[in-house]
C-alpha cells in the first residue's frame, strides 16, 4: 500500500514543472479529504458526545452502596459539590448559548450569552494563572541552576 503514498508524494513534486504543476492538487485534495474525514468523526465523538455525556450528572446526591453493610442509600452531596455541579451544568449551557451564530444576542438569550462570556473569562483567567505559575516554576528552576549549581552563589 505504501506505493499509493509514494505516488501521491511524487505527484506533489510535479509542481516543479509549471505546465503540469496543477496535478499536485491531487495529493493536496487527498490530504484535505483525509484530514476533514478523520477529524469530523473523531472530534464529534471526543469533543461533542463525550463532553455532553460527562455533563449529564445528578446535582444534589446519589444512591450509593454502604461499604460496610452493602446496602444502598441516598447520600446527599456536600454543599461544595452541589454548587460545583450546578455551576458546571449552568456554565456549559450558557457557554454554548454564547457560541450560537444564527440568533441575535438580545433579551433573555443575550443575558444567558453574557453569563456564558463570564464563564469563558473565568476559564481564560484560570488557565492564564495556571500557566503563569508553571512558567514561573521553570524560571525559578533555571535561576536555581544558574546561581546554585553553576555559579555556586546559592547554597
Amino acid at each position, binding site marked *: 500500500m505504501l506505493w*499509493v*503514498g*509514494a505516488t*501521491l*508524494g511524487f505527484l*506533489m*513534486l510535479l509542481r*516543479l514543472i*509549471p*505546465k503540469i504543476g*496543477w496535478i499536485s*492538487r*491531487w495529493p493536496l*485534495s*487527498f*490530504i*484535505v*479529504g*483525509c484530514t*476533514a*474525514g*478523520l*477529524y*469530523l468523526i473523531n*472530534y*464529534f465523538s*471526543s*469533543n*461533542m458526545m463525550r*463532553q*455532553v455525556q460527562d*455533563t449529564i450528572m445528578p446535582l444534589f446526591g446519589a444512591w450509593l452502596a454502604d461499604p460496610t453493610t452493602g446496602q444502598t442509600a441516598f447520600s446527599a452531596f456536600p454543599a*461544595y459539590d452541589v*454548587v*460545583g455541579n450546578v*455551576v*458546571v*451544568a*449552568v*456554565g*456549559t449551557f*450558557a*457557554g*454554548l448559548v454564547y457560541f450560537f451564530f444564527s440568533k441575535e444576542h438580545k433579551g433573555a438569550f443575550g443575558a444567558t450569552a453574557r453569563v456564558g*462570556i*463570564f*464563564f*469563558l*473569562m*473565568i*476559564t481564560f*483567567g*484560570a488557565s*492564564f*494563572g*495556571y500557566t*503563569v*505559575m508553571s*512558567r*514561573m516554576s521553570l524560571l525559578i528552576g533555571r535561576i536555581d541552576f544558574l546561581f546554585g549549581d553553576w555559579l555556586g552563589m546559592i547554597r
Partner: protein
Amino acid sequence: MRREIPLAITIFVGFLLIFSVFFPPVEDLGENFSLFFDIIAVFAFFLGGGNLVRIHGKKLLKRKPDWAFSIVTLVGFFLMLAAGLFKIGNPGDISSNVTAEGSLFAIMYDNIFKPLGATMYALLAFFVASASYRAFRAKNREATILLSAAFVILLGSTPLGALLTSWMPDSLSILEIPNLAVWILSSPNLAGQRAIIIGIGLGVVSMSLRLILGVERSYLGDEGA
C-alpha cells in the same frame, strides 16, 4: 477538470474515512492514510527546502539588505544536511544511527540546535510578565473577571494565599484562597472548557463537511493553471 478531479478525490476520501469507523474491517484506513500523509510530507520537503535555498540564495546574490544573515542560514542548512546524509564523524560506518554519539550531527544538535531552541523558549518568562501586565489592567468587565480568576489561582498556589486566609473558621474553609482556587479550576473553569470543546467539535464537523462537499475550495487554487 483541473478542479473537478481534486474535488472528487476530497469527497471520496472524506466520506470513506467518515464511514470507515462504522465498519471494523476497514476501521484502520485512517492509520494508513496518516502514513500516506507522512510520505507525501517527505516529498513535499523538497519543495520547502528548495524554497529556503532559493530565497536565501537570491538574497545573497543580489546583496539585498541583511544578506549576510542568509550566509548563516545556508551554511547551517547545508552543514546539518551533509552531517546527517553522509554521517560525518559517526563512530560506525554509513549504516550507523544518524544521531550516534560523537557524530557531527549529534554535536551540532546538542550544542547549537537545542540551546538556540531553549533560548527562544526561555523568552516566554519575559513575555509572560508583559502579558500579565496587559491582562491585569482590567480595562473592562470581562478583563476584570479574567484578572480576578487568574489572581485567585496565582495566589492559591503560593504560601501567601494560604497565610492570608488561614484565620478563617473551619465552616468557611471553602473561602480559603487555596480551596477557592481548586474550586475555580474544577467548576467554573470546567464549564467554560466544556462549552469551548463542544463548540470546537461542532465547528470541526461543519467545516469538514464544507470542505468535503466542496463549499470551501480555495485551497485548490485558481481555475486556470
